Structure formats: structure tokens, C-alpha cells
């Protein structure tokens, strides 16, 4: 469509750029407000306004959020919860991606009777509202002795993430010619040899999509965190919500905003560094809400 659009005349070009830049500003303003507020003093917040720059920049909001802020009864900041999120996210992302890679390999290259049905069931699983599994899952985690543990949360995220990772890998591997696999089989290569020698070396892009997508989803999850974890074991999203919505004491908006920044930084960094994989996951797996 490149040559179609060149004909636009000047005033309309200005209008187009105007609208696009205005929209960019609207998308950026909340981030700007979050950042400047996190560097203000409480006094500054009361006297200044949202868009004003801090009169004297201070990192007190950040240090307080990290190590002193109260999330409910405890006042040790959000650092512990931040590490909880890491301890939960890293294994959950790795396991769900690995399972997804093998599932996708089987469902595209080693189809068996019923494998299409299985894929359909997985696909449907992507859409199920999690409210419908919360209660039985809570009961099961309790029975298994995994309630309020990081292991429990990892298990939950693996179960509800594997449908998406399988979808990613299956759709990626479907596009790889079957002839390649057949030739390898004739040469005597087995199931794992074919995967590790042929498919794996060309899978870097889809691994990136899966890893980044799962990282974002699991890091940002709140529902599972709030239902299946309590106290010290909660992930950062739950801690942030507790911090912000606690009704005791004087509200310190600089601390709130610093905590929000801390909770947002890992996914923001991933997005800035590897945004194209994130977007590819978003559009490929656009089934995930």
C-alpha cells in the first residue's frame, strides 16, 4: 500500500501527524505521571500537581516502597514480593515453554488418532474464564499441601499457560515442511533426534515469543496470586494492590507510584528490549485476554 498514500496533500499530513502525536502523548502521560510522582516528596505532591516536575527530586519514595512500605500488617516493603514473583515466574515460564515446545512438535509432526481433538480441547482451554476453575484448584492445592506456596503457583501457571505455549509452537511447526521430517526418519532419526537436531535449531524466534509472552502474563497475574497465595508468599501484583489500597495511615502517593514502577519495570524492560516478540505473541495468541 506504499504508493497509495503518497498522494496526501500537506494539510491532511499535518492533521495526521497531529492526531498521532497527540495520541502518543495520551499513552505516555500516565507513565510520566507515575515517574515524576515517585520522585516527589509528600509535601510536593500536596502543593504541586500531576504534571509538575518535582521541586526537589528525591528517591525516598523508591527506598520506602522497596524496604519499608506497609502491605497490610507487615511493613517490610515490596522487595520480598518482588523476589517471590521472580521465583514463581522463572520456573513457570521455563516449564510451560518446554512443555509447549514438545506438545507443539507432537501435534504438528507426530499426529495420532485423537491429536486434533486434543488440540481443539487445548484451544478451547485458552478461552475458559479462570473463575470457573478457581474453587476446585484452591481445594486441590490445599489437599496437595501446596496452598500458599510458590510451587503451587508455579503449577497453576504451568497448567493455564501450557495451552498458549502449545498453540504458539504448534502453529510455528505446522509451517515447517513435513518432507524434512520424513527424510530424517528415513535416515533413521528418531523422535528426539529430529526435535533436537532439526526443529530446535530453527525455533529461536518462537521460543522468544513464548518466553516473553509467558513472562509478561505470569508476572502480571493478579487473580491466581490473590486466590492461591497469602502472606509472605504473595506475588508483587498482590502486594502492590495491598499497599495501594490499604486504608491505614497517611497515604503516600510517591511510595505508591514507586511501588507501581517497581512492579512494572521487569515487563517494561522486556517490552523495550524484545518488543517485537511480545507483539508477535500478542497477535498470534490474541486469544489470551
Amino acid at each position, binding site marked *: 500500500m506504499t504508493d497509495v498514500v503518497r498522494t496526501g496533500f500537506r494539510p491532511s499530513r499535518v492533521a495526521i501527524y497531529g492526531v*498521532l502525536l497527540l495520541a502518543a502523548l495520551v499513552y*505516555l502521560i500516565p507513565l510520566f505521571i507515575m515517574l515524576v510522582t515517585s520522585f516527589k516528596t509528600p509535601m510536593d505532591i500536596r502543593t504541586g500537581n500531576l504534571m509538575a516536575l518535582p521541586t526537589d527530586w528525591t528517591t525516598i519514595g523508591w527506598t520506602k516502597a522497596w524496604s519499608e512500605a506497609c502491605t497490610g500488617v507487615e511493613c517490610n516493603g515490596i522487595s520480598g514480593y518482588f523476589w517471590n514473583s521472580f521465583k514463581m515466574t522463572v520456573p513457570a515460564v521455563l516449564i510451560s515453554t518446554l512443555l509447549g515446545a514438545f506438545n507443539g512438535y507432537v501435534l504438528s509432526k507426530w499426529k495420532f488418532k485423537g491429536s486434533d481433538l486434543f488440540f481443539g480441547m487445548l484451544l478451547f482451554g485458552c478461552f475458559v474464564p479462570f473463575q470457573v476453575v478457581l474453587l476446585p484448584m484452591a481445594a486441590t492445592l490445599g489437599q496437595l499441601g501446596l496452598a500458599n506456596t510458590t510451587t503451587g503457583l508455579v503449577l497453576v501457571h504451568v497448567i493455564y499457560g501450557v495451552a498458549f505455549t502449545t498453540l504458539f509452537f504448534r502453529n510455528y511447526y505446522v509451517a515447517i515442511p513435513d518432507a524434512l521430517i520424513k527424510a530424517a526418519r528415513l535416515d533413521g532419526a528418531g523422535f528426539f533426534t529430529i526435535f533436537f537436531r532439526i526443529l530446535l535449531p530453527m525455533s529461536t524466534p518462537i521460543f522468544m515469543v513464548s518466553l516473553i509472552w509467558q513472562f509478561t502474563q505470569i508476572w502480571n497475574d493478579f487473580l491466581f496470586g490473590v486466590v492461591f497465595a497469602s502472606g509472605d508468599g504473595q506475588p508483587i501484583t498482590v502486594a502492590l494492590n495491598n499497599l495501594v489500597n490499604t486504608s491505614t495511615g497517611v497515604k503516600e502517593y510517591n511510595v505508591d507510584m514507586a511501588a507501581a514502577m517497581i512492579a512494572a519495570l521487569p515487563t517494561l524492560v522486556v517490552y523495550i528490549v524484545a518488543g517485537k516478540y511480545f507483539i508477535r505473541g500478542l497477535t498470534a495468541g490474541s486469544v489470551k485476554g
Partner: protein
Amino acid sequence: MEHIQRHPARVARAPSRLLDGLQRWLPKLVVAPTFVLVGIGIYGYMLWTGVLSFTSSSFLPVYDFVGFDQYAKLMTNDRWLTASVNLGIFGGLFILSCLLIGVVLAIFLDQKIRQEGAIRTIYLYPMALSMIVTGTVWKWILNPSLGLEKLMHDWGWTSFSFDWLVSSDMAIYTIVMAAVWQASGFVMALFLAGLRGVDSSIIRAARVDGASLPLIYWKIILPSLRPVFFSAVMVLAHIAIKSFDLVMAMTAGGPGYSTDLPAVFMYAHTFTRGQMGLGSASAMLMLGAILALIVPYLYSELREKRHD
């Protein structure tokens, strides 16, 4: 010794046959864990919740079947009705606004814009944030005394007042704002991808016929993006029905229960108010709503895929 020498072939074949068998079972073995996890974790639990919704379970699950009692209770429950109406308002406005903004931005971005990549990155970053973070920020922006209101006062508009966040009539619209801010960039990305796939020769032909660019977009390009439109609505509706985090962070369902959504209702009744049966029934209705959307969609998707 003698025995082996007499049947050397069979000795060599036995382990290879074992391997062959293993090879045949390997694919199934590999997907088996997922099959079990998903079978129990999604389908089994769905059934379990369904069963609970027909019982009088309160703080603990009990299995006394009471028929459709919980569903009947739900239908006369004020809070559930509010939550359902709210979902209608929230879902409708959220989907429409996201589509409108997404389409316009995508079309504008498709006009050979300088720095397109950077602008696109800016539109999409909210999608990488947690809804809790989004809620936290917007709650601060919409703070009735210190937020937008104070900003306007400082900028000279002293009569400006904006207290939607704490007004039971208006609070639901603040949730819409934050949700649209978060998800509209995603719709833009979907449509931009769709626009890039439009065959330019059709458009060139239309131009030769003297059609103006807006007319071409309206009459030719947008109609050809119907599948994109359809997926976008699906995903947005899905986000709307599941919305929970944003409400929890911004209003926690308040003031009163004026910003309750079904997902918040379900959480509150199941996990804090000890009405498991009612909570399960509400979860089943949410599932029903999603099924009504998803089944026709998946059906058409899978059929299209088969044609590839």
C-alpha cells in the same frame, strides 16, 4: 551360546522392536502430562464448579443437590444484577472505544509515517503492564482532589470538578477509561497488521477510477478486514468478561458495589463471603457468556484453518 548363534537375527531384532514400540508411543507419552494437567485443571474443574453450583455450599463444599436454587438466587440478587449491568456498560463502551481508537490510529499510522516504529511502540506499551499497575496509576490520576481536578485548578480552570472515581453513578466509566488506555494499542496493532496484508493493486485500481482515499478505506479496505474486526471483538469481549484486576485496583468494586463486575462478584462470594454455591453459579454464568461468544468463533476459525 549355541542357541544365540542359531538365531542371531532374532536377538538383534528384539530390542529394536522394543524401540520401535517405544517410538510409536513416544509422541503420546510426551503430550500425556499436558493431557492430564489440562484434563483435570480445565475440564475436570469446570465440571466440579458446575456440580458445586447446584449445591447449597457455603463456607465449605457440601454435596446436597438443590437444583437451580443458586441460579434463581442469582437472578434476584441486586449485587449480581448491578454487576451484570455494569458488564454491559463496561464491555460495550470498552469494545467500541478500543475499536474506534484502534482503527483510526492504525489507518493514520499506515500513511507512511516517519518514526512509525517508535510511535507504535508507545501505543502498545500499556499492554505490557499489569492491570494492577494500570489501575494504580489511573486511580492516582483520577484522585478526586489531588489528581486531574487539581491540575485543572492549577492551570486556571478553577470551576473544574471531577469526582467520577468516588461517584457511584460514574465510577464504572473511570474503569472504562483505564481499560481503553491499556488495550486500544493492541487493537491498533491487530488492524495495522491487517492493513499491511491488504492487496495494494485493488486500491491502485480504485484510485485510477477516481475514488478518494477516505472512500477507499471506508468502502474497500475496512470491509476486507472483517476477520480482524471479528477477532478483535472476541478478544476484547473476553478481556471484559474476565476483568477483575483493574476493578480491584481502582475501586475494589465500590463505592458500595457500584463498580462490581461478575468476576469481582464471583471472587467476593466464593472467597470472602462464604457463599460458594452462589459464587460457583456466577462462575458458570460467566462461562456460559464466553461459550456463547467462543463456540461460533472457534468453529469458523477451525474451518478456515482447514482450508489452508
